[in-house]
């Protein structure tokens, strides 16, 4: 009947809107999530190193692990 057909059309429109919203969410995630992940992956160590130097600059350079490593002598 006409009202059932209208209900189905409205449902179909709602579904299509939801699918388009999903595309926008995916794009947003690409920008926010993908870029944020890349920023964390490539920038977090720099940020954290600077933050630790701001809070406790005296100890950072004394840490033995802060020395660049050269390849060791011990071979197996």
């Amino acid at each position, binding site marked *: 009947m006409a009202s059932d057909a209208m209900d189905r059309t409205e449902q179909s429109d709602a579904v299509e809107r939801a699918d388009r919203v999903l595309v926008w969410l995916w794009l947003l995630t690409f920008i926010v*999530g993908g870029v944020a992940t890349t920023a964390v992956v490539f920038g977090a160590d720099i940020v954290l190193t600077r933050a630790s130097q701001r809070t406790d600059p005296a100890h950072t350079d004394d840490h033995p692990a802060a020395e660049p490593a050269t390849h060791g002598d011990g071979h197996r």
Partner: protein
Amino acid sequence: MDLLQSIRIGADDRRLLGAFAAVGLVIMSLGGLFALQMKLVRTPALAVLPAPTYYQALTGHGILMFIFWLGFIQTAFLIVAGTVLIGRRLWSYRLAWAGLGVMTLAAALALAGVLRGVNITYHATIPLAQQYGGAWMIFLSFVLLAAGMTLVVVDFIVTMIGAVEHKRSITAWAAFFKSLPVASFAALAGLFIAVPGLLAALRMFGLAFLWSVGRGTIDPSAYRMDWHIAFHIYHYIPALTLVGVAYVLVEVTADARSVYAKQVAKALFLLYPIFVPPTFVYHLLADPNVPRQVKLAGTVLSLLVGVPTLLHTFIIAGMLEARMRQAGYGAIGWLRHLPWGNPAFGSLIVGLVTLFVGGLMAYALLQEQLAPMLHNTFVVPAYVHPIAAGGANITYMGALYYGVPALLGRRLWGLRIARWQPYVMGAALIWMAVFGAAAGLAGVPRRYADLGPDAPAAWTLWMNLSLGVGAMVAIATGVAFVWVMLMTAVRGEKVASPQAAVADLGPLPPAVEHGYGWTPLALVPAVMFVVGVITLTVMAFQRLWALPIQMR
């Protein structure tokens, strides 16, 4: 039923995925052998091997199981998501084979490094690696693995883009997303984590490889930080993948469809790339160089990291509840009529249960004040095994219970073994976790070959129970799984179609009698998880406050 009936596996997919499965299962078997070797050193009652072999076994087990086995099987699932599940061909099978070849070479190189005695664990920390002339083999193997996976990821991306007819049209993309099963959309969402993670691994291990062959310098602190970040990103791929696999399994084993809009389930996968990146800090809570404010922020954000998975669990449980109520079963009675005898369904449920247990423990470990008490104790492997060997691995085994017969066109061999395998494995992993946590809380350290001559009696008891019973039974059930897969390939009854190959794995529920759209029982796991986290947190803080030394 529709998803299973719609599956067609072309010859190219069959060969490629068969090769991934075969190499992957060999890698998993070798990882299991190293696990056995570890138990025969570290279990007090079973310590028959010399202590120095422990670190080789630890390195082999960690690298082959966590890095390579998961890398192979997840890459295979990525291919399935872009081909078999959506009825498309890969953009380039040559590229995919090249990726597989590079990944296999990487695995061989890693194994050679382990057998040579490069005992640097999967951390491959720089100060430790300095002592091993063969460390370059491990670093290069990680570079090659990342490179091989990148080739397949590129292939997948081009395949998916190629499936959209009008690439600049939002409507075309909307229609494409609508056509995708939830698992294939999960693979698309996972790219936002996988691609940066792979790039990070290529850079970090590339630099480490160059340093290991004397062609560069490296900052050990920066490497350590980068490693934890890349590792953190990498280990959310299994979280996302196991949920995607769960959506496939719940449909093919129980004919369950979503009663909530599929767009909701798909959108939830987009939360992973949002929630996961900031939470890498929870790996650094015991690091004295990380400011406290950063640790606090990281801990608070980390509390959200389980939200997407909890919501997915609600949807998946709801799919089951709705389907069984639609078949006419009662409000609670439907639970008895689920296909518990189907090994893939058993794997799905056990995978979710072990994920639940591991997740509870993880929520204790990621809290800033509790982490120092638990860090580097045996609580860490105690929580890792139900989450990784349970949640991810058992769920993947469930997929293979369908995937291997379907690929080979053979019925599953050893159905009687397969019926109990996931349940016993899950129980063993939970047993290992409970007594392992007790050992860690009693002070047993992680990554030590033996307990030492002055160890308290309680340490010996907990470790014998955790490893001697739990881990050994888990290893035995892993052997049973591999045996079933091998015998299926060799002795499984040949049939004409993928559907025929899996038809005897378990009955589907009766036909739908009436509509049913609300799922109250599906809320129970999520509520139990929240209550469990709160309870475990209270218990852990009471333990912390009872310590003779208070950390401020």
